[in-house]
């Protein structure tokens, strides 16, 4: 009786372990397959001239430089707009707001905003910024629309980062006669900074790969935007247009590989900052 029970337990355990193991393998394999696939198909394309020259001809042969420029531009501008607002909002939510109905409503709204399909956000950007505010298709309109997508993400990660600062560290500051704002600005935010940075970088990676929002708000013109009111074509949009009708598959794969490398680089940086921080504060 007892031994059968024990065998059952052991069997259940083995089954559970196998399932978990297979799930883990599937996850890693999915990532690996994508990376290998993109890498194998795209690596032949990646040359200095592919990165640094302009496309030409009907099939968009040549390089993709202006799309890299547009991607970095819109991502940077969007982060510049979003980060301060999101961090201040998170500080308010975590430190100042009286925890209750209002705050949980705000949090629910933020979570819902984060789950709005990005194509809908693109349409909203088109209506609100491009047409409503007369910005026309522009980097600025796209950056603002992206902000709506990024805001809840950064607010959430920043709020968690702030809450993770141990209460003893805050009390240390209050115990020296520091006011709330002094404690928040000089102790809590610097302590939370590595985690906040990690969240911001991950959000930037998300923004770089975003297609639906930017195609509706900054268009598809290959021009290498300079002013924030210029339109432009980002890498994901370029990739989509090249692949859509199969007009330039090698170019599409090359762009895809560069984009993946950029986003991966961002994620690894975020991971590195997180790690270093854990070691320092250990």
């Amino acid at each position: 009786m007892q031994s059968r029970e024990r065998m059952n337990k052991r069997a259940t355990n083995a089954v559970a372990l196998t399932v978990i193991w297979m799930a883990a393998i599937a996850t890693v394999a999915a990532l690996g397959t994508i990376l290998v696939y993109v890498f194998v198909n795209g690596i032949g394309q990646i040359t200095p001239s592919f990165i640094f020259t302009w496309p030409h001809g009907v099939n968009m042969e040549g390089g993709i430089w202006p799309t890299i420029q547009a991607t970095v531009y819109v991502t940077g501008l969007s982060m510049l707009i979003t980060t301060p607002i999101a961090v201040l909002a998170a500080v308010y939510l975590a430190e100042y707001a009286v925890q209750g109905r209002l705050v949980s409503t705000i949090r629910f709204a933020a979570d819902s905003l984060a789950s709005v399909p990005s194509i809908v956000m693109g349409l909203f950007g088109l209506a609100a910024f491009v047409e409503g505010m007369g910005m026309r298709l522009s980097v600025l309109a796209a950056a603002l629309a992206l902000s709506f997508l990024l805001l809840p993400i950064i607010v959430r990660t920043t709020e968690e980062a702030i809450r993770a600062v141990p209460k003893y560290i805050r009390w240390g500051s209050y115990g020296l006669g520091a006011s709330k704002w002094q404690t928040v600005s000089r102790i809590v935010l610097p302590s939370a900074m590595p985690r906040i940075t990690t969240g911001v970088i991950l959000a930037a990676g998300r923004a770089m790969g975003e297609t639906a929002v930017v195609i509706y708000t900054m268009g598809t013109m290959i021009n290498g935007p300079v002013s924030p009111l210029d339109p432009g074509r980002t890498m994901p949009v370029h990739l989509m247009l090249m692949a859509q009708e199969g007009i330039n598959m090698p170019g599409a794969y090359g762009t895809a590989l560069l984009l993946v490398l950029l986003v991966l680089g961002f994620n690894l940086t975020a991971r590195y900052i997180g790690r270093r921080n854990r070691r320092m504060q250990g």
Partner: protein
Amino acid sequence: MSDKLPSHVVTPGAGPAYDHGDKFKVEKLDFFYGGFNALTDISVSIKRHAVTAFIGPSGCGKSTFLRCLNRMNDLIPGTRVEGRITLDDHDVYGSGVDPVDLRRRVGMIFQQPNPFPMSIYDNVAYGPKLHGVRKKSELDAIVEESLKRANVWKEVKDILSRGGLTLSGGQQQRLCIARVLAVEPEVLLMDEPCSAIDPTSVQKIEDLMAELKDRITIVIVTHNMQQAARVSDYTAFFLQEVAGEPAHLVEYDRTASLFTTPKDRRTEDYITGRFG
């Protein structure tokens, strides 16, 4: 002095030669976490320029009481104080009192060393900077003086720019003491400052307490009877007799008397290790 106090205030036995009067006077204090009455009817006076130890079993409200003295409990939502606490005869919970000022005067050290994630120097300079000291030479002097008083200067004088968190636990605790001393508090509240650190550091902290006494009033919570007996001049024994009921002050006396001739049976049982 004692004849001016309300009759319910337990005064220590024969007044020692170094009695400089009362720093804190606590009268009929009750403390609540929401609906939970954690402390009841605490009346005690804390002597100026002496070390007072709070002892008692876990959960009997020693930390809670300590945090009443510098209004650190204000930071915990839903807490409430009844009764009266005075510091130098001024009501600590009076309407004109800014808790931020109070906490500068009444510094606090916690069980877990809590250096800020910044350099050793900046940790100590943090408080003075908050209160308006800007000149580098002045800050340098305060940092050195405070680290010396906290018995940690020798170990850190060559690594002032290193992160405070890279030090050992015991060094971190002394750094935290230096950080508090840098704002020249009148009172130092220490909540089990030695329970998470190495014996050498414990020794150094006990030494520095003896040295600080002539300028500062010290209150220490400790679970270590020997430590209480070694470092303190007065001892207060807290007890929560029934779970869920409020804790109260059982006995308060000069340390020498309390440990040799306790008046209350429960005190005797506790200090001889029969419970707790």
